[in-house]
C-alpha cells in the first residue's frame, strides 16, 4: 500500500507516536502505563522508532529515579501525518 509507513504500521507504534503528539516529551513509565505494555515491549518499539529517527530519547531523572524521556522528532511528526493520511485514504477508498 503506497504511503503506509512500515515503521509505524504496527498498531502499538502508531499508538505510541500518536500519544506523543499530545505532549512535548513523556517519561518512559508514563507511556508504558498508558499503552499497557511491558518495559521490554515498549523498549523494543522505542528502539525501532529511534533507529529511523522518528522519536528521540534522553536520559533524565523523574521523582529521584533515573529514567528515559521520549519525544517525537520533526521527521517523526511528518511521517505520522503521512501515514495517517494514507490510512484515511485506504478507509475512504471503500466508503
Amino acid at each position: 500500500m503506497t504511503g503506509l509507513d512500515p515503521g509505524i504500521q504496527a498498531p502499538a507504534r502508531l499508538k505510541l507516536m500518536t500519544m506523543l503528539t499530545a505532549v512535548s516529551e513523556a517519561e518512559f513509565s508514563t507511556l508504558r502505563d498508558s499503552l499497557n505494555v511491558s518495559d521490554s515491549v515498549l523498549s523494543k518499539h522505542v528502539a525501532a522508532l529511534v533507529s529511523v529517527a522518528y522519536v528521540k530519547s534522553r536520559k533524565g531523572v523523574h521523582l529521584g529515579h533515573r529514567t528515559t524521556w521520549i519525544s517525537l522528532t520533526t521527521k517523526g511528526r511528518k511521517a505520522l501525518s503521512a501515514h495517517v493520511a494514507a490510512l484515511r485514504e485506504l478507509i475512504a477508498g471503500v466508503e
Partner: protein
Amino acid sequence: MENSEPSPTPEDAAAALVEAEASRTHLAGTLALPSFFYAAIGAAVAVQIATAAFSITDDRVWAPIRLGGVALFVLVAAIQLVRFRQLNGVRLGGLASRVVLGTATAASISYAFALGASAWAGFNRRWWLVIVCAVAGGAAYALSGRRWWRRYQGDPASHSRGESAGWIAILGAVAIAGLVLLVLER
C-alpha cells in the same frame, strides 16, 4: 525496520486509527494540574504587575522590590512546571508557553491592559487602583490559562506544542532588556 507487515484492510486501518486517537485522548485526559496551579500563577502575575507599576511611577521604590515581582514570577512558574512534570511524567510545551509565560492571546492582552491601567493609576497616585488592576490582571491571566487547558483537553494534538525556542528567547531578551532599563533608569 521490518517491511514484512501486511497491508491492513480498511477495517483494520479504521480500528487502528480509532485506537490511536483514543490513546491520545486518554493520555491527555489523565493529565492533571498541580493543586493551586491557577491561583499561584494568577497571584504571581498580580504581584509582578503591581511591583512593575509601582516601579514605573514612583522613584522611591527600592531596586530589589522592582525586581522582586519578576523574581517571584520566575520562581512560581518554575515550581509549577516542575510539579506538573513530576505529577504527570510528561512535559507540555503548550502549557509552559501559553499558560505560564502567557503567550496565549487573551493572556497577553489582559496582561498588557492590566499593566497599562496599573501604571496609569500609579501616575495618578491612586494606589488602591494599582492593586485592583494588578489583581484583575492576574485573574484574567489565570482564566486565560484555564481556557487553554480546556481547549487542550478537547484537542491535545493541536495545542500541545508551545512557541518555538527562538521566539521564547526573543521574548526573554525583551523582558530582560525591559528589566535592566527599569533598574538603570531609576
